[in-house]
């Protein structure tokens, strides 16, 4: 019986550790990192044409999965989960 308890405890600890693996970063935090290079561009975009969340997300996903190539953005987009790219697209199109 003790052994079973021990196993359950070990299982609990390992699954807990797994569940707590790196959390997604918020769209706002990601967006502020975009502004280092794209601050002006994103501000101008707002005044010239509305940017759709889905089209921005699709562009970011295309960079991540190499369906679209650029000198820098493929390397950057691979640093984010798909959910984070969706979140940042939502934040940027909502706030700009």
């Amino acid at each position, binding site marked *: 019986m003790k052994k079973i308890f021990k196993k359950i405890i070990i299982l609990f600890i390992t699954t807990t550790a797994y569940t707590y693996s790196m*959390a997604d970063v918020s769209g706002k*935090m990601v967006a502020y*990192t975009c502004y280092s290079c794209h601050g002006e561009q994103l501000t101008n975009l707002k005044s010239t044409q509305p940017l759709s969340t889905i089209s921005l997300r699709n562009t970011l996903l295309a960079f991540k999965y190499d369906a679209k190539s650029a000198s*820098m953005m*493929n390397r*950057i987009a691979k*640093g*984010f989960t798909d959910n984070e790219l969706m979140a940042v697209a939502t934040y940027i199109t909502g706030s700009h």
Partner: protein
Amino acid sequence: MISRRQFMHLSSRSAALWLTGCHKRAFNSSSAHVVIIGGGFGGATAAKMIKQLDSSIKVTLIEPKQHYITCPGSNWVLAGFKKIESLNVSYQQLLSRYDVGIIHQKVATINPEKHYVTLSDKQKIPYDRLIVSPGIDFRWELIEGHDNSTSHLIPHAWKAGIQTTLLKNQLQAMKNGGTVVICAPPNPFRCPPGPYERASMIAYYLKQHKPKSKIIILDAKSQFSKQQLFFKSWEKHYGFASNNSMIEWHSIPDNPIRKIDIKNRQLETDFGDIFKADVLNYIPTQKAANIAHTAGLCDESGWCPVNHQTSESTLHPDIHVIGDASIQNPIPKSAFAANAEAKVCAFAVVNLLNQFEAIEPLWVNTCYSLITQEQGISIAMVYKLNQQGKIIKVTGAGGVTPNIAEATLTIEANNAKRWLKTIVMDSFK
């Protein structure tokens, strides 16, 4: 969903509340004062961003210089296609757009226990949270015969401004056929690809104006950032690795430079090897800026240890350290990184002052280097925090310029020039 780290963080704060019966800083953020020491990329970004996130927080930036001169772009001045004046950045927009208070004075001391900073005119500035972003200073004690008092003769040019101009003037005065010696420092140091971009930019100038000249890099390291890209680009443009190479790279990690003869512009290594230069650019071994040392914010490494989720010093509570002075491995010491660290710090400071939940941090870094006026290379990485509170590189992300085709390197050079404008705008405007 709340992460374990956030839970731990919040629960330790709640426990402290419960134990003391009241909160030590039970104010709302509108009465809070954040003081920032250092108006470089880190300090300026932190000031702007805190006001953007919560305009009710009072922010005061303390910086002795009336305007900033960016280190990024300063090697381009040596090449001759960038004017040093074009690197000037005003602090005016931080004041007019974001209501950041600016005091142009030097900080004399920090009192971490009583939470105030003393300025050089003895004025005391109290703070609720202090952000220290002071940059670097040099470990002159490691070299004989040379220190800050002779740096007008042997410029390091590792802080942009007068030093950059001194080095440029020496290059212009040098004869055709002269030897430029660049001493690249050991890790960790500000701008890891910097010495090699500098060699490229000096070679670009010499190739046009003094083609018989040579550049010798004496390196305290056995390898360096973007090494293969630099080597291949130097082969293409400056005959690297041929009998007629304009650039030579000598790695001497076991035979460090010990002595400088200022008068003869001559170096001596530990084993007694002598190198003679016409222009000598000795970039000293580095440490966190002196104010961080006198305030007790540094460990035995000479740099400032911090909690990576908040950038809060592990040695003094309520003081955050960002930029080159802080230990943020594996993030390199760069302007881009200081900007990214300032953002993580600003989120943390605003959340702590408002007693909001901590957020999951994220850092991006990109370092561009020019090889010629029109050709450039880059390295990039995205960083996150793991469960042990360590910063890690995100697997599969980042890396260097994907290929060395001329068209790619032209795009990279254009991006490098555009990046300097955007990072200045994002940090100061």
